[in-house]
């Protein structure tokens, strides 16, 4: 049987959840007849009808606002951002309406806002961003970043079933490049649990989304030099699995964090602060960050290649850390 791609896994998750629960509805631009700009909702309109797969105007505020309103009546809407870059257009609805709703007046907002983020496809500054940190910083929202097809499906199901607003950052570079065999039966992956993708003892590499794949590549090359790197896939940024990170650092005593997002205000800083305060006496070296530089994502291929972290860069940094 052919393996399932990351994108197909997402489509399956939507399909299966819609079959399981009639209160799951989709909203977004071009998701109905067209099946979504990337094909994530292919076939769902035909199966579930016009009421459950709603093609919207170009109005991120209306898309997310209406999703919030629908969730107040007990539905579980999944809103698509055609590119996660466009989530900036509805920042207000997410940060001020959805995030504070339960805290202020006990009204849960069980919505999912999903879409493709990340670079590597030469799409330029407005179609390649990694906007997750604006929302990691906003209490009341959950943030999910799957790195594998199995997780994309399992985490999306958990996100849909969660009573909180969940932002689901898919990585467009992984859509068709990552595939694996998926179980036939229903399964979900809980939010807030990181995964050890590769066990090691000399240093810990923490990452999420596309950089997990790059980190595994780097770890393979490090092994040739006799350096055994442990690779952690965060899977969710909020809630963060602090215990797995800390346990790994206590074991290897060296930490490297890599993400495709820009450096300042990125997740690596947050993790570094956590480890310094909780496991300072287990550190045998400085905490190293490998990230994109503080600039918008450039368009030309040569520029973008220099901009994004990659396996070679991760391996270099890891080698230096291991020998320090």
């Amino acid at each position, binding site marked *: 049987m052919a393996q399932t791609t990351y994108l197909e896994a997402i489509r399956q998750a939507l399909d299966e959840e819609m079959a399981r629960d009639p209160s799951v509805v989709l909203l977004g631009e071009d998701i109905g007849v067209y099946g979504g700009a990337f094909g994530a909702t292919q076939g769902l309109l035909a*199966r579930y009808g016009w009421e459950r797969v709603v093609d919207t105007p170009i109005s991120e505020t*209306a898309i997310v606002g*209406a999703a919030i*309103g629908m969730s107040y009546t007990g*539905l579980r809407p999944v809103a698509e951002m055609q590119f996660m870059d466009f989530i900036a257009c509805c920042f207000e609805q997410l940060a001020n309406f959805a995030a504070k709703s339960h805290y202020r*007046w*006990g009204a849960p907002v069980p919505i999912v806002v999903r879409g493709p983020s990340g670079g590597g496809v030469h799409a330029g500054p407005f179609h390649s961003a990694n906007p997750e940190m604006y929302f990691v910083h906003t*209490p009341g929202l959950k943030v999910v970043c799957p790195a594998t097809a199995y997780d994309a499906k399992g985490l999306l199901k958990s996100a849909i079933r969660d009573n909180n607003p969940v932002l689901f950052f898919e990585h467009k570079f992984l859509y068709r490049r990552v595939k694996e065999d998926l179980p036939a039966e229903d399964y979900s992956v809980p939010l807030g649990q990181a995964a050890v993708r590769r066990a090691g003892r000399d240093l810990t590499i923490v990452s999420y989304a596309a950089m997990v794949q790059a980190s595994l590549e780097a770890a393979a090359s490090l092994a040739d030099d006799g350096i055994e790197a442990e690779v952690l896939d965060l899977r969710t940024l909020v809630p963060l699995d602090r215990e797995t990170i800390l346990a790994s650092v206590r074991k290897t005593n060296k930490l490297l964090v890599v993400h495709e997002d820009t450096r300042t205000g990125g997740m690596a800083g947050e993790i570094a602060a956590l480890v310094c305060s909780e496991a300072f006496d287990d550190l045998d070296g400085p905490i190293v960050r490998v990230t994109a530089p503080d600039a918008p994502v450039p368009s030309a291929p040569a520029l973008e290649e220099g901009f994004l972290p990659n396996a070679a860069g991760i391996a270099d940094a890891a080698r230096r850390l291991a020998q320090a």
Partner: protein
Amino acid sequence: MQLTLTREQQLELYYFMRLNRALEERLDRLARQGKIVGGLYSSLGQEAISVGSAYALEPGDWIAPMVRNIGSLLVRGYSAREIFTQNMGRANSPTNARDNASHLGDLSVRHVVSPISMLGDLIPVMTGVAMGARFLGQKRVAMTWIGDGGSSTGAFHEGLNFAAVQRAPLVLVLENNQWAYSTPVARQVPLRDLADRARAYGVPGAIVDGNDVLAVYRAAKQAVDQARAGHGPVLIEAKTMRMRGHAQHDPAEYVPKKMMEYWKARDPIARYERALTVGKLWSAADKKQIDARIERELDEAVEFAESSPLPGAKEAGEIESGVYCEGCHEIAPEWQRAKEELLPPKSAVAARWVVNDFGAFEEHAPRDIVMQTAAPKAAAKRAPARRTAHAKVTKSSKARKARG
């Protein structure tokens, strides 16, 4: 509910408007005693809009009040106690002292959605509420309010546009009270009648005298019935005047005195009292009884609120609780249609567009840009007072600045 109201219902309209006003007078007094937490916004002079429009709804319908719609909360079942504890930041307030003003809501019983401070955002959200209710087979309407100023936001446009395209059962009451904080409406919008905007969204727009509670009720009732029948959203512009400043701290000296006097003579409650008297629907004794009942209710509510605890160390210690909903709520929609309709095989459709209007030029009447050929002063004659209402720095605030 019929378009015509019984005597009891008409008296009830008075009760709610008078309660609205008296309650807000108490809030004002409490503010001057330092007991209010957060901003305080008055709906003085606009009570007929909140009360008249909310009165047209059925049980099960949804509302989302703005800060000047306490009247609608009272009509839909909120008690004076709840409004006072909310505004006084008490631990037992509807938001457990975590928010103030009218930022409260009730998903399960009274179907009230809490507003946020940013304007216009309620419109896409209530569009979603209306769509959700329809999806579940409920015959329910969502109503919310917006001001002349709030109608300038992008969220207003995106929300109403979406509601119109989806033909959502939404009634939007636009309160044109002539002022958005210190900005007169002429500076806020290029229209005299905001109801004209409805045309841009392909929805019906009505203009109503916002200070005539029965007129407001009738317009709202028609709009609500229309929306409930599936004909899509309706925009009602209620013309009125904000009789106080933007909020407690704003003396509104930028409002011309003559304008205030003009509208004082059109006070909605005084007008309605006269109408009830002339229509022989009540006696002086009836009014006295209702007024006394209101005073008693408010006395009791203020006392309750004043002796309610302020949040303390316990609440401070739980400051992060409730940021997320983890096992505290069971989300169960109220299905009023067969779920099978929404699942395969019944839900299957042919996934293709049916396009009726190819959009070509030949199919539309030609239209040119309409040039202004008349001299500008002729245009000024058409709409006098409004155009000359500028915001001014007044003497007294200047003097205050000089005093330092």
